């Protein structure tokens, strides 16, 4: 008996198993840590496929930076990874200094202040990560403890940088002004209080059975896969590879500081959590050493009026100082042509800048290597086979910052 064969379905209808369902998480959901849309295909509650849509925060920062003076560009670049403003600026000024050929001339005190700022920022960034990750998993109290530490750190950053969130304190050639009187005492108080606060946090979460149940064996990624996905930072070190830019390619005198690189081999969300907690302790060790070195006074910018404007007081007394001030404010300075790649260890991994100068007073090309973009991408693999409730755990454990992913 002949039966009419129904016409083939048009290609835009996705062939799908009748048991699966497509769900959209975000982009407006607090647990997506910004504006991220994850489209998951689930069978029951098990994720079979995950894809992501990013770009909701794209503001063309790279394009803006290419049309600003070398010093002005730093201001917009600081806003990319908004939890790590000093780190962004740090990487950018190091790259620009390489192009200018003044890397060796940066005064040691300026390098110490930069290291101090970068490590304090790393701790405060991890505090935000821990607090929000905790909220995602229903551990509300961890948020208050973590933000308590963060507030104290932001107070210190404010007192030497001038602002809590985006101090714009680093300069090509040094830092903007010496640290104020009383900073060392403030740091001493922070250093004294910190271990106790961290102890509270650890007590709350580290051996908490609910926390362990929800993070152990979730989002596991092996070392080989982690390298294939270009993961860096705590996400890579949670999978066993102790790659830390501070150790592998030391900058700003990191080779003279004593610290360890925490590593775990498990590769799951709990391993990444432990690596970040240990990193906060290690960062505090570096802060202590930097604080000890800051007791010695010294210059904080290079002595080159073509790059760093002379002190404001001198412009009433010296004509040259006035001219240099005018030149730097009105047309910036020129950077010799060439290209350079510089990276630092940010809180989320290897943050890199590829700068091209054509000899002008503006960068010709500013390419950022955003660690969050690469770290986030591996979610496509690690989510498969987990329950949909674990999606927020996995996103949180990768610690993406969307200002940086989308730029």
């Amino acid at each position, binding site marked *: 008996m002949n039966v009419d064969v129904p016409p083939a379905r048009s290609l835009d209808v996705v062939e799908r198993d009748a048991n699966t369902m497509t769900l959209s998480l975000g982009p407006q959901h607090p647990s997506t840590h910004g504006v991220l849309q994850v489209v998951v295909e689930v069978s029951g509650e098990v994720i079979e496929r995950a894809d992501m849509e990013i*770009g909701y925060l794209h503001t063309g920062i790279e*394009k803006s930076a290419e049309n600003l003076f070398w010093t002005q560009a730093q201001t917009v670049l600081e806003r990319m990874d908004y939890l790590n403003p000093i780190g962004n600026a740090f990487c950018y000024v190091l790259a620009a200094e390489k192009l200018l050929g003044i890397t060796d001339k940066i005064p040691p005190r300026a390098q110490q202040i930069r290291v101090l700022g970068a490590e304090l920022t790393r701790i405060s960034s991890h505090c935000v990560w821990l607090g929000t990750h905790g909220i995602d998993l229903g551990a509300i109290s961890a948020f208050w403890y973590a933000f308590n530490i963060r507030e104290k750190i932001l107070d210190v950053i404010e007192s030497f940088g001038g602002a809590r969130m985006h101090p714009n304190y680093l300069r090509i050639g040094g830092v903007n002004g010496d640290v104020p009187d009383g900073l060392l005492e403030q740091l001493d108080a922070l250093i004294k209080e910190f271990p106790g606060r961290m102890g509270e946090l650890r007590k709350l979460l580290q051996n908490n059975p609910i926390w362990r149940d929800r993070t152990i064996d979730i989002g596991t990624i092996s070392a080989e896969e982690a*390298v294939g996905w270009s993961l*860096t930072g705590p996400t890579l070190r949670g999978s066993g590879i102790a790659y830390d830019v501070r150790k592998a390619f030391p900058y700003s005198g990191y080779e003279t500081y004593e610290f360890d*690189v925490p590593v775990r081999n498990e590769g799951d969300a709990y391993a990444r959590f432990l690596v970040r907690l240990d990193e906060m302790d290690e960062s505090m060790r570096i802060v202590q050493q930097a604080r000890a070195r800051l007791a010695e006074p010294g210059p904080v910018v290079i002595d080159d009026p073509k790059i760093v404007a002379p002190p404001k007081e001198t412009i009433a007394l010296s004509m040259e100082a006035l001219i240099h001030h005018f030149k730097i404010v009105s047309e910036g300075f020129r950077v010799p*042509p*060439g290209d350079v790649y*510089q990276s630092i260890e940010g809180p989320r991994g290897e943050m890199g800048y*590829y700068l091209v100068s054509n*000899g002008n007073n503006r960068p010709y090309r500013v390419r950022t290597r955003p660690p969050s973009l690469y770290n986030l991408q591996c979610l496509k693999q690690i989510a498969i086979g987990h329950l949909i409730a674990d999606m927020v755990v996995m996103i949180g454990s990768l610690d993406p910052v969307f200002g940086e992913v989308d730029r």
Partner: protein
Amino acid sequence: MPSSQTPSIAGYALDPTTVRPPLSDAEILRISPDELRETLVRLREEGCSMLLDVGGVDYLARVPRFDVVYHLLALPTAPASVAEVGTPRRVRVLVGVPGDHPHVPSVSDLWRSADWAEREVYDLFGIVFDGHPDLRRIQLPDEWEGHPLRKDYPLRGPAREATPRPSFALKSNVPAGAPPSGKVAEALRQQIARARGEEQ
């Protein structure tokens, strides 16, 4: 009037990366798109296991017009201590891509991370990665026109483009030697002509 700080632009405006000995931040390879896959496969076999980043640069007046820049890093692929990682080898591969045929073979089958990286270069520079399984825009909406990080893409949108801007504000976007253009330059030119006419 050029100040003492003004460098002579003639020599390196087209490709600033070739004017002086490269800074010793990585090994640098300069290749054509045809050699790309072969080179990257060889580097990968030599141990450059991580594709750190893929970026683009638009040199506008240069031939070939674009550079696609691959940053590679030689990391172990099994758990390793700080001493075992040591100072890994860094390689930077610069691929010159012609402006009239911006095509590069994709390496997304070699490194999974190349997926988003190549999509971003495609989105912002309009360079097509042949063989990429899912080459869509990633940062901008699908219906967006143009590729913003190209140097001939305007800095401001059409609504605000009418605002006259002093020509120095756009200096870095204009290739060296191009005559000043725009409303301000035109007004100045007319003013000068008028002044000369009155004198004569």
